[in-house]
């Protein structure tokens, strides 16, 4: 069934369909309407879940960590400084291997305060051990929330579903609500191998030594480093899980097919633009225009950011003349974080393409499609590599 609603509502519908049992959240713009919608669904008993109105984001994730440790499907959502306030708990959730799903409604970080969109919040948390998926429209939001639980519960690692604050969260557009029975076919009830339980007492997340140590039966148990190494190797394998999940989803719902990077006119493109979130869809209009003018250009929208699908990225970009990375985040004192990752993925490819980085839209700075068009067109014409200096679009100095 199609409805026209805001992106936050699409996310809430996905959470409901996924059969989430525990929701804990703290209000923050622009995430708030998602949380309000969930409390409404729970209060009206349309959704059979525990809604915990906590006193901080730190506690929101703490509740999810504990609920997940006790074997329940848990969800939270936040933005910007709320996400940063969770930072410690983000690492904890990943280290404890809990399949929590969280929507991050992307917003710039203070100071100074901003409520508007960029990707600095989620990007700054890329090394926490969370899987990060980015959405371009409402259909992707609702579908990705559902897929996120499937991925999280397969790998036993938490997933962030990221979507642009206001641009997606508060914008209304049509999307299809998947059928509940189909969702249950895709995502069965959460049955963890272990959970907090008085019947088989275990002490979770205890202090772990640098070296392996024998357990009560004399078998060797891993040390801290083995546990962390395993998180890494399991996350590397998540790249395949994401693809398998997408295939399974497509079989049931008919949508998907490009789990890591969504391509638009890239097959034969000499120049490719890479970006994440709604920006990659906005870029499609630019590509249409430039294609009309005979420019051989396409756009890749990166959907999976962590773990980084480096092989897919390298394969997609190998042999291109120009790679133009547009992003709404900045590793201060260096360059855009996505740009760094893409450069790293290209290391060792046969034909190193020329590469450029564009920073734009920080703190909600308006991104005019016309300005994107100009930037892409100029860059294609200049055909120049600028691997060390990002260009800023829309900067009014």
């Amino acid at each position, binding site marked *: 069934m199609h409805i026209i609603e805001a992106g936050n509502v699409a996310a809430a519908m996905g959470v409901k369909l996924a059969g989430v049992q525990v929701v804990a959240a703290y209000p923050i713009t622009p995430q708030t309407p998602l949380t309000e919608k969930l409390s409404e669904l729970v209060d009206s008993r349309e959704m059979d879940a525990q809604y915990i109105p906590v006193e901080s984001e730190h506690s929101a994730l703490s509740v999810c960590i504990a609920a997940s440790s006790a074997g329940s499907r848990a969800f939270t959502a936040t933005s910007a400084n709320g996400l940063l306030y969770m930072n410690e708990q983000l690492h904890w959730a990943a280290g*404890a291997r809990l399949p929590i799903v969280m929507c991050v409604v992307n917003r710039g970080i203070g100071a100074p305060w901003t409520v508007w969109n960029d990707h600095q919040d989620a990007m700054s948390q890329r090394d926490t051990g969370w899987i990060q998926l980015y959405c371009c429209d409402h259909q992707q939001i609702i579908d990705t929330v559902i897929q996120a639980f499937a991925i999280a519960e*397969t790998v036993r690692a938490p997933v962030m579903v990221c979507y642009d604050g206001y641009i997606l969260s508060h914008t209304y557009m049509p999307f299809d609500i998947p059928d509940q029975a189909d969702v249950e076919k895709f995502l069965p009830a959460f049955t963890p191998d272990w959970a907090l339980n008085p019947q088989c007492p*275990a*002490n979770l997340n205890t202090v772990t030594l640098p070296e392996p140590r024998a357990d009560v039966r004399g078998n060797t148990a891993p040390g801290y480093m083995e546990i962390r190494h395993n998180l890494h190797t399991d996350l590397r394998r998540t790249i395949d899980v994401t693809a398998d999940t997408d295939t399974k989803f497509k079989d049931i719902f008919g949508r998907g097919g*490009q789990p890591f990077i*969504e*391509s638009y006119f890239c097959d034969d493109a000499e120049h490719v633009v890479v970006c994440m979130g709604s920006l990659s869809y906005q870029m499609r209009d630019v590509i249409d225009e430039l294609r009309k003018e005979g420019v051989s250009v396409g756009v890749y929208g990166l959907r999976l950011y962590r773990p980084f699908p480096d092989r*897919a990225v390298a394969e997609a970009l190998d042999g291109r003349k120009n790679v133009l990375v547009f992003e709404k985040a900045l590793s201060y004192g260096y360059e855009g974080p996505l740009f760094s990752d893409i450069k790293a993925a290209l290391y060792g490819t046969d034909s190193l393409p020329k590469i450029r980085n564009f920073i734009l839209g920080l703190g909600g700075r308006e991104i005019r499609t016309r300005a994107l068009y100009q930037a892409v067109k100029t860059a294609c014409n200049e055909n120049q590599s600028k691997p060390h200096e990002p260009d800023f679009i829309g900067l009014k100095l």
Partner: protein
Amino acid sequence: MNDVKNPGNSGNDPKKQEKFACRTSHSEPGPGDGGRTGSWRVLRPVIDLDKCIPAKRNKAACFNCWLYCPDGVITKTIPPTIDYEYCKGCEICAEECPADAITMVEETLILMEEK
């Protein structure tokens, strides 16, 4: 619109089929996590059964030593017994015994005696 191949990272790796190890720090209950903590002891509590109230009366009584022992190494039995494997020698039992039935004896003396 056209599709990109989206290759995964493991290819035909047989590992792909393996279950995720999901290593965590989940501990199982068991004694002696801190080792044989009896070795921490400098003084050993020794119960004088002639003074010990439950032993003397041969019925359940007192058991202060059992109640206050931080490490749970004294039994609530007649007479109470002490698990020297784990007793850390804190002396609380000796201090709290209302009958002064527990004396702290130097471990070195006991060792010499055992020899």
